[in-house]
């Protein structure tokens, strides 16, 4: 039954804050372990007020799925052009930083999606596959010069495996603080050292292959 009542203008913010709170909670403890009361408490509303904005918990879930599981924003696309002339090493670090910024910003949604995938949601699974493919294509654009498609695939695959392992470890280790950690300079410095070992970008580019 759709809610046709006209919602006041400033209600949009309330609805938004409900959705953000729900996303955090679903990501932290899962959909089944989150109650409407938990969500209401987090945004300082009563249960009744929450039901005014969002009729059911199921609807919160569906809205989150359609809003949050989006493809990578075009904003990052600009960074491709900006780093086109940098050496491969700097280009890869720029790509990694862009991915970490994205993870810090949308971590809750990603964790929520991973949970749904593990719980067996086919929708979440196909969404993840689409998102993965979009990122893959996007990242390949960073290295479309001087590499064969096989080399490019290997480079992107190993970089994404690295990022995946990194995000997993960061959330496990830091929990709710992970997005702060992911943005911190100290973390980035260490990650740059690690990625240059795990993904030896120089070895992919003959001209920069170490002479030793």
């Amino acid at each position, binding site marked *: 039954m759709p809610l046709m009542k006209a919602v006041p203008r400033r209600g949009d913010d309330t609805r938004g804050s409900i959705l953000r709170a729900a996303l955090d909670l679903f*990501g*932290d403890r*899962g959909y089944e372990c989150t109650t409407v009361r938990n969500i209401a408490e987090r945004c300082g509303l009563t249960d009744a007020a929450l039901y005014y904005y969002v009729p059911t918990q199921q609807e919160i879930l569906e809205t989150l799925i359609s809003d949050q599981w989006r493809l990578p924003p075009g904003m990052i696309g600009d960074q491709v052009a900006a780093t086109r002339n940098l050496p491969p090493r700097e280009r890869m670090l720029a790509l990694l930083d862009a991915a970490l910024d994205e993870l810090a910003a949308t971590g809750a949604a990603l*964790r929520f999606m*991973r*949970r749904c*995938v*593990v*719980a*067996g949601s086919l929708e979440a*699974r196909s969404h*993840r*596959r689409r998102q993965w493919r979009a990122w893959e294509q996007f990242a390949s654009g960073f290295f479309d010069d001087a590499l064969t498609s096989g080399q490019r695939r*290997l480079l992107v695959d*190993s970089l*994404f*495996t*690295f*990022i*995946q*392992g*990194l995000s*997993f*470890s960061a*959330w*496990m*280790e830091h*929990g709710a603080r992970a997005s702060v950690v992911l943005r911190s300079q100290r973390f980035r410095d260490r990650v740059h*050292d*690690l*990625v*240059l*070992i*795990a*993904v*030896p970008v*120089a*070895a992919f580019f003959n001209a920069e292959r*170490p002479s*030793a």
Partner: protein
Amino acid sequence: MIAQRTYTRGVGAPVQSPARRPRLGPTTRARILAAAADLFARDGFDATTVRAIGLGAGVTDAAIYYHFRSKAALLDALLVEPDVAPLLPSVGRFDAAAFTDYVITVFVCWSERPALVHLLMAQGVETSPLAGEFIHSLRDSYRRLLVPALAPWFAIPELIADALSLQVTGALLGALLAHPESFQQVIRRPAFRRRLRTLVDLTMTGAASLRAGESSASA
């Protein structure tokens, strides 16, 4: 023989004096551990009851509490690292190929217990309070296994060990998310091992180039 069968079936299993019967099947303790690993992986740690583990292993709750203080103690017992120390390569000079073999061996020891790996991954995805402990113990155990083998040859063995464990973790998580139902089979397939080997090879290439950089800088 017949007595052994009724024992493993478990209905009304005689709990006392196991020493008197010949040990043909796995011990009670081993069966409890195996059942717990399967159930934790399938249903998660929180949702698995001690009673369900008992049913799975064919023993009573009391038998479980005889061997393990609590459900958490059962989990601790499962997280014992595999004994791969004898497999450590003892080469005179550093051999990247041998080391790759070694890392794969370390991983294979884990993947021989796919239910446990599944549990680690799924619990991590859920970021339960246990998760932080998992990742620390996992990283520590990788460091314990890899750093001694790397230390004679590299100035920053911890960094290389961490890079390796991130790649293995990332590959495992990728497999879990791509094949949530068949994860336990997927990580045992040769194709997955090959993929892992490629990633480890790349990382060792990165480590070697770092080393080349170091030596040329010091020369």
